[in-house]
């Protein structure tokens, strides 16, 4: 059972969850790499984390093991703390530069 032949499978199996999560994760990664607006980048990072959450819950049910679902709560709590700090940094940048375009951040290059 590889990732590629899941489309031939009429029942929803664990591989479908893996495929959806991998797609969401990839969308997040490309958003972080190619978007220039800091808020959009934050949202893409959240997308990456939420694809992980989805996959963890799917695996947790698949293995009949609760620890995967507990891990999701860890990720949610930490992501909230992380984004709080990130938004605070963004506010200080906006106060100093009046923009949140990360291409404007180039004071540190030689």
């Amino acid at each position, binding site marked *: 059972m*590889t990732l590629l032949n899941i489309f031939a499978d009429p029942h929803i199996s*664990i591989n479908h969850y*893996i495929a959806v*999560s991998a797609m969401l*994760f990839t969308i*997040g*990664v490309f958003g*972080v790499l190619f978007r220039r607006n*800091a808020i959009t*980048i934050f949202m893409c*990072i959240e997308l*990456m*984390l939420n*694809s*992980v959450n989805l*996959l*963890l819950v799917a*695996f947790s049910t*698949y*293995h009949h*093991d609760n*620890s*995967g679902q*507990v*891990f999701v709560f*860890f*990720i949610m709590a*930490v992501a909230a*703390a*992380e984004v709080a*700090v*990130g938004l*605070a*940094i*963004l506010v*200080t*940048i906006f106060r*100093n*530069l009046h923009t949140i375009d*990360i291409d404007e*951040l180039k*004071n*540190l*290059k*030689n």
Partner: protein
Amino acid sequence: MRALTYTSFLGIACLVLEIFNLRKIVVPVVVLALLAILGINFTEWNGSSVSFYNDMLRADNFALAFTGLLIVTAAGLVAMSGSFYDAEETKLADYISVIVFTLCGGIALVSFSNMAMLFIGLEVLSISLYILAGSKRRDIRSNEAAMKYFLMGSFASGILLFGITLVYGATGSFNLVQIGVYASEGNVDPIFTVGVIMILIAMLFKVSAVPFHFWAPDVYEGSPTLTTAMMATLSKVAAMAAFYRLFSVSFVNNFSGFAWILSVVAALTMLVGNLTALNQDSFKRMLAFSGVAHAGYMLLAIMSLYQNSANALFFYTVAYTFASLGAFAIGISVMKRRKSEKIEAFNGLGKSNPFQAVALTIFMLSMAGIPPLAGFFAKYYVFFEAIKTQHLAVVIVAVITSAISVYYYFKLILAMWTRDSEEGEAAAGGAISYVAIAAICLVVTLALGVLPSLVPSISQMAGR
């Protein structure tokens, strides 16, 4: 692992001291408390590798030794923060408590035995550092460093989490030992391999190894210098130890497939780090690239997973930590007096302040690996482990690049001893705390060079 509990309480206690308006005593109280925690930490030494909190943490000698190193580093940083933040006294307790919380993250990172603690430790460490990197609110360079560090750090955590999830999907457990058991049965699921590679990428991001090192120089340059010192010592050592722990317990059985990736990464890291450091004229940027290069040398120890390579890694991190903490102590003191971060700021230090110049010279020589200093034995042990595991080609690259590194360390040494300062200023000594920290680091660097056996053996390995 009582050190972790007590350190968390210490961080909260800092904030309480601020409420009761005891700001004046917060630095000495925290330094003494950290030294007490250091003592408590070593009472568990050579215990029977007890596991805590349902096998979330494991207090083996590896964890205790690195915890001790991190506590000493944090105590040094806290001791310096009193004079470093003298312009913003009202925020001192906040800064110190964030430093202590960073230490908590570091302790969780070196003693985890469950993927959940790896993630929590890494995030506590990183989030505290994002705050400290951006702590000069009105300075656009500090804002920028914080933003870059935040974006790179949370991107890497996302990759790490996806890797952990895939490994969980294949093994059904977050416990390192159980993952190791699954991996040793052979016939692993492809998603397990993909997961391990993603974890590997995230860890390389955190230790700033070469394809993923581009954030380090900018972040090091923009952050307040004390925070830069913290990233170069505390955070790098904790991430490196976590890297080693993860791979030595869980992935050691199918490691041969990853060893060649790591050897290419290590060789590139040493080459790029040392070659780019050659033409830097900022002290902080030069140390940033030198830190990238040192990450490459430490990767040699991870690459040659062996009973003894934990010892080699620990010795290397001790030598590197004390040399760079001391260099930053003197660097902060000089850059604050001359108000410049260029290497020219160190001109004439040999005449105006001989002790600081001698100490900085010795730290630079130790980092370059000149005998008989700690850095020489550090490199010797790491190279020896790599040769034992047939990584001769990488060791040759390592030897050549450490010869190259002598050049840029000497650039700083020559600036101190042979050039004269343009401003004929009085030889102000700088705050006593910087000089004291530098003196302690100097003693350790010299002592470990003469008696390298002072560093305890930590061969009782995690979970095995």
